[in-house]
């Protein structure tokens, strides 16, 4: 790696994609779903009037002191457990000193050498097969307070910046991965998978528009050239504010670094890490203005806070609350509920609420296959169309289960079932009331017999076909039957017709 032999421009130019390995590590800041801030009682609600969610503590007023929110600690541990991290039994708080107007105390309370979560991992895979399933190692995850929001004058006329401290002190978990990802696609898959876990265990809403999940990436290239392996300088990319942005920014940066290296031959040796921002409009990464001096955060233990000690019992109790994680849930659905991989995936990707809805429906109607079809089609279509969440869906899992049970029992066919569902939604009534309203009733056997006789009389051609052995021809009579009596069950009808014609019982 460090042979320092000069590589000629011609050799650099000749390098192909096959000789380039992309190295990506991510730092993800996740806003934890607490009601109040990390060190004070101010609300963490998003989108309030500027500086209305502040107090002496989160504005760093002289004399104010921080007191730790225990829920933030609990959510951090929960996340750590879900990411297979070692949980620190003893953690402490450190001050990261730097000046910025949205950092009221002149330091951020963070964790330096005793992060709440130590080494862990997250397995990622790609359903389209863009990469082989792999394990991304988590280096650490630590708890810290968020800064406020600065809005700068973009006019170029040097107007004043405005500072809103509402967000100051919101709990963030900073998750740092090892440089284990080899493509932008892997990085994106990591982020998607991470988001799914975090929302599953309800530690964060991961709303990227509101900044609940923010991602920075460290990226460089390892290149095999002329029998040597060289590395390009590491670049940190900030401001990747959506999964798509992350993927595109990293993809762009791979190309940019390769082009830069071909042009200059610059390698990692002696090159300081640079910071680039992703411009989503221009679709380019842009070098950020260099700071006047290298960052020296002068970390030291925060003397206003004391250490936190967590017991095995407390950690186990939090583990109990995690429930089944998405990857495990997918397997369970396939194995125990006989869902296809595809169906299980669709379901799990919808989040815990939809999975729980499905499980409850499947249990009530005792028919997983019917339940998954209805949930993945009827329910999800409605949620998509109305852009709503499962808990806003008008029919509860009990009501849906009841409806599907009637279908399973043969009281209704699926088509009639859908009519019933519409009626249930329209009038906010249960299945029984909807059936009553639609006038659906059981057709008794003498009624059925006379209907069948009527059909057979009217369709001599079909009768002839059946008698020649084409039993399937009876299907043509179902539509006619329903015109006469919409309540007739197609299955029962066909069985009765077969009986009357004396074919296979």
């Amino acid at each position: 790696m460090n042979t320092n032999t000069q590589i000629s421009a011609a050799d650099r130019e000749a390098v192909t994609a096959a000789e380039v390995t992309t190295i990506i590590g991510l730092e993800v800041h996740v806003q934890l779903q607490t009601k109040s801030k990390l060190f004070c009682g101010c609300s963490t609600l998003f989108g309030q009037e500027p500086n209305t969610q502040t107090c002496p503590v989160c504005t760093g007023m002289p004399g104010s002191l921080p007191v730790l929110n225990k829920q933030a600690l609990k959510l951090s541990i929960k996340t750590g457990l879900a990411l297979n991290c070692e949980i620190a039994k003893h953690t402490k708080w450190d001050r990261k000193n730097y000046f910025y107007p949205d950092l009221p105390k002149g330091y951020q309370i963070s964790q330096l050498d005793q992060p709440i979560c130590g080494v862990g991992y997250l397995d990622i895979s790609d359903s389209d097969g863009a990469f082989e399933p792999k394990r991304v190692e988590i280096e650490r995850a630590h708890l810290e307070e968020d800064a406020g929001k600065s809005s700068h004058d973009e006019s170029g006329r040097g107007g004043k910046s405005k500072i809103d401290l509402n967000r100051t002190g919101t709990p963030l978990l900073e998750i740092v991965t090892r440089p284990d990802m080899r493509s932008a696609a892997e990085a994106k898959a990591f982020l998607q998978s991470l988001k799914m876990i975090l929302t599953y265990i309800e530690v964060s809403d991961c709303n990227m528009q509101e900044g609940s999940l923010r991602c920075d990436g460290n990226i460089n290239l390892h290149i095999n050239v002329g029998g040597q392996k060289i590395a390009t300088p590491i670049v940190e990319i900030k401001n990747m504010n959506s999964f798509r942005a992350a993927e595109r920014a990293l993809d762009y940066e791979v190309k940019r670094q390769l082009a830069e290296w071909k042009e200059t031959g610059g390698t990692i040796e002696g090159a300081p890490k640079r910071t680039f921002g992703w411009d989503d409009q221009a679709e380019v990464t842009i070098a950020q203005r260099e700071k006047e001096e290298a960052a020296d955060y002068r970390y030291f233990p925060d003397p206003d806070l004391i250490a936190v000690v967590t017991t095995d019992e407390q950690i186990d109790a939090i583990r109990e609350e995690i429930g089944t994680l998405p990857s495990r849930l997918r397997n369970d659905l396939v194995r125990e509920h006989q869902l296809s991989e595809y169906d299980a995936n669709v379901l799990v990707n919808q989040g815990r609420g939809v999975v729980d809805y499905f499980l409850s429906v499947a249990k009530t109607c005792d028919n997983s296959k019917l339940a998954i079809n209805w949930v993945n089609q009827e329910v999800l279509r409605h949620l998509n169309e109305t852009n709503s969440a499962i808990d806003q869906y008008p029919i509860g899992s009990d009501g849906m289960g009841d409806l599907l049970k009637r279908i399973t029992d043969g009281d209704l066919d699926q088509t009639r079932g859908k009519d019933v569902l519409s009626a249930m939604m329209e009038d906010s009534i249960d299945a029984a009331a909807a059936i009553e309203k639609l006038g659906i009733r059981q057709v008794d056997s003498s009624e059925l017999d006379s209907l069948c006789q009527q059909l057979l009389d009217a369709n001599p051609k079909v009768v002839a076909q059946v008698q020649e052995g084409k039993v399937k021809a009876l299907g043509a009579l179902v539509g006619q039957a329903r015109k006469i009596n919409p309540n007739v069950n197609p299955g029962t009808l066909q069985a009765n017709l077969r009986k009357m014609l004396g074919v296979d019982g």
Partner: protein
Amino acid sequence: MASSIECLLSLVNQNKMEISKLSASQIVSHIAAGELTATDCTQHFLNEIERKDPTLNSYLHVAKESAIETAQQIDARRSAGESLGALAGLPVAVKDGICTKGIRTTAASKMLENFVPPFDATIVQKLTDADAIVIGKTNLDEFAMGSSTENSAFGATKNPWNTDCVPGGSSGGSAACVGADLAPVSIGSDTGGSIRQPAAFCGVTGLKPTYGRVSRFGLIAFASSLDQIGPFTRTAQDAALTMNVIGGHCERDSTSAREDLPDFSSKLDQSLSGVRIGICKEHFESGLPDDIRKSMDESISVLKSLGATTVEISLPHSKYGIAAYYVIASSEASGNLARYDGVRYTMRFEADNLNKMYGLTRTEGFGDEVRRRIMLGTYALSSGYYDAYYVKASKVRRLIKNDYTKAFESCDVILGPTAPSTAFKFGEHTTDPLTMYLADIFTVTANLAGLPGISIPCGFSDGMPIGLQLQGKSFDEATLLQIAHQFQQQTDWHSRRPQA
């Protein structure tokens, strides 16, 4: 008992000026008994302040109107038969580094010249809840950094015993106002000796409680792991009375102790027989002035006559106390004072870009000593020096704490001089900051170890008071107060007053 109250009552009735001779405990009981009104008492101190403080400059702000108003309310409530708090009607002066809601709080810095906190410090809340009256805010070294109160941005405080001398610091205003009878009780804070050393210089009783005993919420931080709030009083008995009110767990301070708060007054009258007093040999080693040494010997004799025994102990690492202290305190201060950046608290030096605004505001807003300590602390924490300075100092701090643990195996308290000299002259130590730092040599170690210490008057040298320091075990302020009280029953150093 009855006769002594009658006697005092007649004293009070004879001459209002005699209020100055009353202890805080006496003031409280007279007001409770209806023999003195809170309004008269408050007015008396306001008059005294008006008369003497233009010379002394112990107050930065006198809360005349609100104090009288509160006093009248207390008197009215008493007349109406309402039950009143433990300090009902007692005027208390509060160091201006402690936040008072609606009352300007400057920490004696230009940086906070117009800062009005929208909240009360916990101790102010507790004092007010006990119906004490905040009579004013006292002077200090800027952000409590200093040992002479010469570093105040609003002029030095003078020593009531000799106005050519400093009152000590950083709580010089709080010590001087009690020493000059401008308040029966005041509140200060002690980071490296800032209560005990000025108490010694001004001839009053000053207690630095165990770290965590008194809430720091609302105390403008100098060095968070060393700062501790405590009272200045005339007697140990008054200190106990005040501690009963200001001590105790506070949910807004994470470092606040959860230990139960004892009744500090209950042990005062216990005999000293069986009490083991440790004499720290390092305190007597070199350069201690003869007068101070002599006062120590006499004080030890007094305590022995009361039944105490002595034992020689050693605190071998105490000589590194000042070095460790300056690294740790300055490092913490460099962080604590980063918030004064011209964005949120009153002072700003305008400039056309952010960094320039920061730099000019901080250079203009802070005084020399504060800037010196920020520089030292920033240096000590900066890349490459952290281990050699901050971590090493924190290890030495552990060794100092361990020395105390070992010493307290053979004694109950440790006795020695509070300071290596009596009050020095203005300007005497300002050219070389290091010599000023050494004024805290006997007091800093208790802060480093988080232990309680008390300074009481024990003699004079050239007309200036000498202080006796007692350091105690963690959360054992009661024993310090007991010994101090017993000593004050036998001596009259604490009742001597400077010429008005």
